[in-house]
């Protein structure tokens, strides 16, 4: 284990007592105190049930062996999931996305789907992401890669990133708040002049609107929550930051803010 993990481990071990910080027991205590009746939860992976009493198995991990070099795959099934890679980089995977890397070179990754990266700085080893028809190379920064559709997209929130079709193709350099897209017919990614802050709403956990027409707001929400809407007064403008946690709440906030009526279709 690395020093970083040792430091965590030392702290945990110093205080470790078996059966303490036991979520299930604490939750029962809480529910009892507040008269909440507990709903039984389905155990999706019975063999981990001893470890995680009732957490739903949202993510899974597959170990494949190739020439003694372990291929590690991390995956988010139903929810946005954050992972820490062995080099200390953080990856937030969008639902249904997968990232794999080999144990020997954890900074060379393969992405299927959409992910937000916070790459740990290491000048000697660039962090690389390959996706079907897209390649991204970076030294230490925060950015999002969407390789989930035929148009690949990179959005940088910090630092500097090279975005190209493949590792030997000509690419574009992106810096803070720049966004570029790469469609199948393009050889080189195209920089989007007006980058959309809501591209990373799923990672940030909130939507930011600034005098955005309601039509555009609903388009953004529709893409995020996979539902469609109909509304009156589509040209009214909305400003503010909204938590991405609860769609009904956002809708009701927008309705009262703009005095409009929004229905789901």
């Amino acid at each position, binding site marked *: 284990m690395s020093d970083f993990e040792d430091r965590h481990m030392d702290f945990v071990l110093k205080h*470790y007592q078996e059966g303490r910080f036991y979520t299930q027991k604490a939750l029962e205590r809480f529910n009892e105190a507040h008269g909440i009746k507990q709903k039984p939860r389905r155990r999706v992976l019975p063999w981990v049930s001893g470890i*995680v009493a009732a957490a739903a198995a949202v993510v899974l991990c597959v170990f494949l062996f190739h020439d003694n070099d372990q291929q590690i795959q991390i995956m988010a099934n139903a929810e946005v999931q954050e992972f820490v890679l062995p080099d200390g980089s953080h990856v937030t995977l969008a639902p249904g996305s997968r990232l794999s890397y080999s144990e020997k070179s954890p900074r060379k990754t393969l992405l299927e789907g959409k992910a937000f990266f916070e790459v740990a700085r290491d000048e000697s080893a660039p962090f690389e992401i390959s996706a079907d028809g897209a390649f991204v190379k970076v030294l230490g920064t925060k950015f999002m890669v969407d390789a989930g559709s035929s148009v690949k997209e990179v959005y940088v929130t910090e630092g500097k990133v090279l975005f190209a079709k493949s590792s030997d193709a000509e690419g574009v350099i992106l810096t803070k708040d720049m966004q570029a897209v790469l469609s199948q017919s393009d050889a080189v990614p195209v920089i989007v002049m007006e980058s959309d802050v809501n591209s990373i709403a799923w990672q940030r956990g909130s939507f930011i609107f600034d005098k955005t027409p309601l039509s555009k707001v609903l388009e953004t929400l529709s893409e995020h929550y996979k539902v469609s809407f109909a509304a009156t007064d589509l040209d009214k403008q909305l400003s503010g930051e909204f938590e991405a946690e609860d769609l009904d709440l956002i809708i009701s906030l927008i309705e009262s803010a703009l005095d409009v009526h929004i229905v789901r279709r």
Partner: protein
Amino acid sequence: MPQTDKEILFDDLFRYNYRPLCLYALHYIQDVDLAEDVVQECYTALWEKLQEGAHVLSRKSYLYMMVRNRCLDHLRKKGIPTESLKPYDTYGIIDDNDAQERSQTEAKLWTAIDSLPDKCREVFIMSKRDGLKYEEIADELGLSVNTVRNQISKALKVLKEGIHKIYMFLFA
């Protein structure tokens, strides 16, 4: 009484954050019992606020903030000067953001240790926490030195490999 949506959401808030919050509190107050009480208190306070109809954006950050403040209250009551009210690990003072971030990983490590077979965990803790030599552990538990060595390397392997898996599976 059937569970309401609100209760289910709160239930998830509890399941996903209880252990990390305990570890976070531990960085301030270094006491397992107290940490559990503080975290339980904070969930109760948040629950009551929500029942009253309060609107809390980002409940998770709100919980972290509550836990921090309550820990600081405890420390102040013990007469600890304000400038020393800092989170610690075994190496010294750490940053509050760092403590929040680490609490997630540490909760997973705690869970991983819980998941070790009993004997393996016992040997591992005697060695890594209590600093006993292999011979001393073997003596105390009536095992061979070889068995002790094997159990420790097994534990390390589980935790090291597990650290990947842990990130995947464990929210408890």
